[in-house]
């Protein structure tokens, strides 16, 4: 924490013509930079290492004519502002050198561009496309069980099908409306669990574990199979948003905390912890795909990956959530929420930023 108001105040201009102007004689230690966008366009302003272009901090967005403060502690080195104004090439301001050292100085991170994420996003798409036939087959087995009125088999086949879907890492609606159809919850529906528009895995789970008959469940199983088939068709042709994909590495864990470890998504199967394990499988897949971009920028990459694996294995082997002792439950809550903390920087590090152009 820096007591910003007491730091020396420096006015810095941000525009295509005068990027970084005004920052002339900095001293090591806490900086209180007041950045004015004097351009007619909105933009993003980065404080960078003048030699490498790595980014210390950003103001994003900075509207035309607006002022925003940036408090940061800087040690010795050479620095430059980079102004990325809308519809303009980026501009790098004059190099400013600080001599000396400062404790608590910020560390820069190499910015990630759209192109860096393109390969990883493509790899993820290939991975999901490879898994979708497996999902379709598992859902097909469930559908056949319901069709021939074998609900005991349907209960047994529901879990592997659902876990296969969870492994894809579709946290927070990554698959759009189809995710709602395949894995939606009754919350937000006027009639709750009785709402006819509730469909998908959890609707089937509710029916299978609440004594509903095959005639009731048949259209739901058929609908699930149709939605998975639709997902296969869509996924082959649609572009995945790169930023959304980068967020997955963090958000799958948040999703598990919010919906699985609370037991909120248990509609009878008692499989929340197995779902957590499947979610962490998905996280591991995403982290591995991102390894080349992420590991040089995120020092705890290897140890975080190991924690993902360990937590997933423990969750898979665990007794059902409802039967855990307080200590056991605290243990799994601690591991998964620590992972959420550890993975939170990934979304920040991987947010695409405009490099020197």
């Amino acid at each position, binding site marked *: 924490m820096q007591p910003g108001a007491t730091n020396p105040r420096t006015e810095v201009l941000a525009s295509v013509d005068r990027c970084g102007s005004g920052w002339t004689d900095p001293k090591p230690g806490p900086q209180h930079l007041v950045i004015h966008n004097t351009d007619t366009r909105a933009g993003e302003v980065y404080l960078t290492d003048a030699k490498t272009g790595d980014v210390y901090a950003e103001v994003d967005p900075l509207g035309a004519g607006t002022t925003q403060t940036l408090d940061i502690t800087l040690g010795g080195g050479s620095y430059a502002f980079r102004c990325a104004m809308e519809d303009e090439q980026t501009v790098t301001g004059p190099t400013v050198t600080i001599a000396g050292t400062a404790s608590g100085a910020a560390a820069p991170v190499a910015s990630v561009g759209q192109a860096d994420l393109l390969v990883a996003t493509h790899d993820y798409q290939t991975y999901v496309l490879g898994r979708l036939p497996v999902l379709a087959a598992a859902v097909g087995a469930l559908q056949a069980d319901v069709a021939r009125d074998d609900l005991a088999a349907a209960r047994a086949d529901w879990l592997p099908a659902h876990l296969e879907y969870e492994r894809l890492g579709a946290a927070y609606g990554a698959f759009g409306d189809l995710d709602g159809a395949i894995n939606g919850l009754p919350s937000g529906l006027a009639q709750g669990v009785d709402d006819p528009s509730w469909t998908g895995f959890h609707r089937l789970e509710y029916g299978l574990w609440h004594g509903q008959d095959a005639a009731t469940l048949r259209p739901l199983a058929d609908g699930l199979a149709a939605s998975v088939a639709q997902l296969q068709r869509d996924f082959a042709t649609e572009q995945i948003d790169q930023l959304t994909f980068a967020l997955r590495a963090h958000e799958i864990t948040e999703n598990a*905390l919010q919906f699985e470890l609370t037991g909120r998504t248990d509609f009878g199967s008692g499989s929340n912890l197995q779902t957590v394990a499947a979610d962490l499988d998905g996280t591991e897949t995403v982290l591995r795909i991102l390894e080349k971009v992420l590991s040089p920028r995120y020092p705890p990459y290897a140890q975080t990956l190991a924690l993902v694996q360990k937590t997933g294995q423990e969750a898979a082997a665990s007794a059902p959530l409802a039967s855990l002792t307080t200590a056991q439950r605290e243990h799994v809550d601690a591991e998964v929420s620590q992972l959420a*903390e550890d993975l939170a920087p990934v979304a920040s590090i991987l947010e695409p930023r405009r490099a020197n152009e």
Partner: protein
Amino acid sequence: MTPEDEDATPRTGRTDAADERMSGRVGRRGFLRGAVGAAAASGAAALAGYGPAAARPAHAETVHGATPAPFHGTHQSGILTPKPAAAAFVAFDLTVSTPGAAAELLRTITDRTRFLTTGGTPPNLGISAPPADSGLLGPDVVPGGLTATLGVGATFFDVLGMPSARPAQLRPMDVFVNDDLDPARTGGDLVLQLCADSRDVVLHALRDIARHTRGGMQVRWRIDGFDSPSRPSGASRNLLGFKDGIVNPAGSEADRLVWVQPNGPEPAWAAGGSYHVIRVIRMLVEFWDRVTISEQERMIGRRRDSGAPLSGSRESDVPDYADDAKGSTIPLDAHIRLANPRTGPTDASRLLRRGYNYDLGIDANGNLDMGLVFNAFVQDLDRQFVATQKRLADEPLVDYISPVGGGYFFALPGVRDASDHYGKALFAS
């Protein structure tokens, strides 16, 4: 309660004298009427400065120099009056089913809130009964900035068999696409919003009112709220760390945006009242704290530090959307942009917000359970609240918040004078 109402106070095997006291015919309330009389002069003094546009009414001095919000007026206090630090929102279900019993219940609430908001010395009941007051505020009840705002839900009219008296748009709260409502924390026949300068005053009032209405209504759900101090200046912050309630309609706009007007689509008795929307919105604060500042600011549309819109530099700067058609400064799906697009057609959908932060402990897996009691008053439920809420459907912020309860209510018109009481016009209609 009157003895004529068969479903009034449940009998508990007490003596007739105790029953009589509980029924309020000659017992406790009789004494308290005397106490209210003593404070009535100060209440009347306050009344003079009170009107719908009065930002801060003239205050009368009372026993300890505290400043009572006026109780009597065309409109209830606790709507346009400044927002004090502490609040409780308490929904009740009726346990009486006749209009007569409900009218008596509302008369009791009137008497109690008139006394509590004005202040005074509770009577000494001697050896006839336990003490008249809980003593939370010491021997003399100070007003402590207390306002009590009473509203009725749609089910109030169902229970009492008075469908024709129901305000035209009053209904159970709609379920919106991102809601996760718990029925046990949603709805209610009545709602009481208690606000005061400190928590003890709020809790004192709640205990007093509940004590006098035991047989007539039961608490269905309750949530307490607090307003944070201004840090470092300007509007107070919600638990996402952002300044909240920066923009609110001016008092001069109340007849257009807050108060139901006479001779319109609403029943005649409803003029001077207001639709009251309460939404208990959990904030997933652990998740939120793991999100970058620039993503947070793009979701809200304002700077976290200053409260300035992303198109400005100060909290008071007006967001500029005309020059930002693509959303490169304030994203098109930013909360403030969807909530109030600042266009001609959406101008009449603005709300009077009077929200409070809440803190309820933890959830099933140890995450903190805190958030916002979204609290709004509108003249027209559909034109204002529902239209705004629909614009916000699936906004990026929905991953970090979860509406879990609340309700639609109708804040009754004010109690006009010492001879008026809550629901008088309603039950006469």
